Structures are given as C-alpha cells and as structure tokens.
C-alpha cells in the first residue's frame, strides 16, 4: 500500500516537474511568412532520442522480433486487445471531458462487453459489433478545450509526446485497474505490454528507417501531424491545409523553422 502511494506520488511529481519545466519554454513564432513550431526542448529531446534508439536497437527491437517469431498472431492480437481494453477507462473519461457523451456511453458498453463476454478483454467483440475503439487522451482533451499541443517532448523509454499530454500519464495511471494489483502481477504484465507494444510498431519503425534521412525530425513531424489528426478525430479542418503552397520562398536561410500543417 505504502509502496503504491509512493509510486503514485512520484509519478505525480514527475508530471509537475515536466510541466513546469517545459511550459515556460514553449513558443510559437512566425518566420519568413512560414508558420513555425519551435522545438524548444530539442537539445534534451535529441539526447533522449539517441538513448532510446540505442536501447531499442540492442534490446527492445530484437526482443520484440523474437516475440513475434515465437508467438502466434492471434495470441498477440489478444494481448493487444487485453491492454487496449484495460486502459479504456481513460478513453471513456476523455470522451466525457470532450463532451462526446454518446460516444462515452458507447465506449462504456464496449468496455463492459469486452471485459465480460470478451473474456477480460482478450477478444474485441465490440469492434465486430460495430463499436470500434476510439483513441482519446488528456492531451487531446486539452486541445479540444482550446489549448495548443505544447512543446514536443521526447520521453525516455516512452517515446514522442507533447507537453500538454503529460497529465495523461496521471489519468491513465489512475484509471488503469492494473495500477491496483500487486507488483508480482504488475511487473510481468508491464513487461509483456512493453514488448507487445514494440512488436506492434515494427512495421512503422521499419518504414521510418527506410524513409527517414533525419530520424529525429521525421519522428517529430510524423508524431505532431498524427496528433493533430487524432485531435480532430481523423478530420482535421481544411482551412490552412494548403497554405504551404501560397508562401514566398525568398527569405533568409538562417532560421530553424519547421512547418506544421494544421
């Protein structure tokens, strides 16, 4: 009990530190008529990115590849279903916070059916019945409330994120039933989740390795654009979609501008 409380407190502290550290630095500016999203945390981000890449190359990716080789696809699918389902309360909370009440009700039924008839979430029967999983988190909720995404943040062992999505660690942690089980169950399950999550990303990271000339920038841009897409539930507004083609390209080449289509 005490360990758990300590862990929760520690996580909370981490969140507060991250927010106070990063939000002061987040800036957006305009340079040469190009809307730029600054990457104020680029220096620490790049350090953590390199550490993660090294860890991934020598540990996580080989383990994930072995896992894929020895685990049948239906089993991996069920593992994914289980973790998607057990973290779904956080999705429901955020659907509520975003005022999507119908979808929150549908999501609750989804959670209920998958947890019972779907054998603790191992089988995603709700998707077959026409209630697919939604992807919502606290960062998206803040965006729906009118906050911008905040600075890009590369978290050690976790990967790409944005400052405004950091509180999601707290809500998803508190709303995950696994938080409240003993560590003898929690640790092996967390390890399985980590390996399974990495395995699910093998195709994506292979495409990135194939396509990227600068993996750090590629990851950041793809992540931020994907976030924008998720925030708008797959239908980002079309205004400004093609602004990129109306710019003049005669400016100085000394700024470090990065364009994000919003």
């Amino acid at each position, binding site marked *: 009990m005490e360990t758990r409380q300590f862990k929760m407190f520690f996580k909370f502290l981490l969140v507060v530190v991250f927010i106070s550290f990063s939000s002061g630095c987040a800036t957006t500016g305009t340079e040469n008529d190009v809307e730029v999203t600054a990457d104020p945390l680029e220096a620490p981000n790049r350090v953590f990115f390199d550490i993660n890449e090294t860890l991934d190359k020598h540990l996580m990716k080989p383990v994930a590849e072995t896992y894929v080789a020895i685990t049948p696809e239906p089993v991996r699918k069920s593992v994914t279903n289980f973790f998607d389902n057990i973290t779904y309360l956080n999705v429901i909370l955020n659907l509520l916070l975003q005022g999507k009440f119908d979808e929150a009700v549908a999501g609750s039924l989804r959670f209920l059916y998958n947890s019972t008839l779907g054998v603790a979430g191992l089988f995603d029967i709700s998707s077959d019945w026409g209630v697919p999983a939604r992807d919502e988190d606290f960062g998206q909720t803040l965006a729906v409330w009118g906050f911008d995404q905040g600075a890009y943040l590369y978290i050690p062992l976790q990967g790409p994120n944005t400052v405004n999505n950091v509180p999601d660690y707290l809500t998803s942690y508190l709303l995950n039933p696994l938080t409240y089980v003993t560590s003898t169950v929690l640790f092996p399950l967390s390890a399985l989740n980590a390996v399974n999550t990495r395995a699910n990303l093998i195709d994506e990271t292979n495409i990135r390795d194939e396509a990227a000339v600068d993996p750090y920038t590629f990851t950041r*841009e*793809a992540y931020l*654009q994907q976030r924008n897409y998720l925030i708008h539930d797959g239908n980002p507004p079309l205004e400004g979609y093609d602004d*990129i083609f109306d710019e003049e390209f005669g400016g100085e*080449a000394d700024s470090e501008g990065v364009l994000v289509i919003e």
Partner: protein
Amino acid sequence: MRSEKYYITATNIRINDPGLESAVFIMESVDMAASPRPLIRIFLQGLCLYCLLFAVTPAFADDKATAVVENLHGILLENMQQADSRGYAGRYQALAGYIEENFDLPLICKVILSRYWSKFSETERQRFTDLFTRLTIATYASRFSEYQDEQFHTLSVEPLKKGRLLVKTEIRSAQEDPVSLDYLMHRQDDRWLIISVVANGINDLSLKRAEYGTIIKDEGFASLLGQIEDKIRQYETP
C-alpha cells in the same frame, strides 16, 4: 422546344448531378410557364444557362482530378497484384511515366526546399528535382509491393483555396484498419496535378521539408543529395 434541346445537351453531359438536375428542372418549369413576356423569358433562360454552367464545371473538375488519383491507384493495384512477376524494376517502370506526368514535381520540390530554393542555382534545383522524382517513384515501387486484398476507395472531393481540390481516398483490407490517403491537387492549364499526399494525417511534403531543412542546415546540400541517393539505392536493393 428550346428546353428540350437543352435537356438533350444536359443528358449528354451528365445526368446524375443534383445541381444539373435542378437546372434542368428550372428550365422545364420555364418551358411550362412559357411566359409571354420576352424580358422575363430571357432572364429566366439566362438564369437556367447560368445554373447549368456552374452545375457542370465543378462536376467536371472533380471527375478529372479524381481520375488522376484513381488511375494512380490502378497502377499501384496492378503493381501489388503482380509484385513478384514485375519485380522492383518492373514496378518502377510502370509508375515512372505516370508519376512524372501527374505529380507537379517542380512545385513540390520548390515547396520542400522552401527558403533554401532561392539560394540554389538552376543546376542545383534541377539536380534536386531529378533526384526527388526518382525517390518518389522508388518509394511507391517499393512500398506498394504486396497484395492482401487491398481495395482503393474514393470517398469525397473537397474544395480548397484558389481552386485547389482535396481528393479523399482510403485503402481498405480485411486484416488492417483502413488507411486514409488524401491527395492535394491543383490545376495547371487544363490538367489536374497531385501536389501533396497525406497518409493518415501525415503530410509527406511538410515532413520532408522539415527533415531536408535540418540536413541542409546541419550538413549541407551535398550531404542531402548523397543521402537521398542512398535511400534510392536501398529501395533498389532491399
């Protein structure tokens, strides 16, 4: 009599279009009204002609732009279905002409190099454009090289600023979640050209722009060209 003539013309153009149908309906109403006052008749007929023209033009534009995307999808699908028999070289060959003709690659390259564009000489720009064209074809030839019952569907066409269009499509397959592919198109003379592709919300053009900008800034233009050549070689010899 006159409205009948219009109607035949309209049928030949396109009968399913709601805008057009309403124009035809208005014309028929005018004919039925058969106003004896010439001024009113001329005004109403003018109105009908106006409706007709503006109902037809966007429909044509949409169709032409959609056809460019769907023909590309047709080639990709053939490449996927005959991936092994064609091989990489065959797939590249099948795509090369079409991509060169139907993507506005000079504009794409200008936007990608953005503020660096004006810094480079004409030779450097041309070198980049040639290389990027090869990279684009190579990426499609390499990426679309497996077939698992995928189907391409055109969802809608949305108007953007300055007459540009966004053709929204989706790849569906039994195993995977659908992947959305949106094509940004603009008109050049009488042709519709693809200027950007957005896959599941990720815009390849702005991604490359950020990446290439970083490389040019940190390592220089020559290094960027070298790295793009490496990528093309990797696609050629997977």
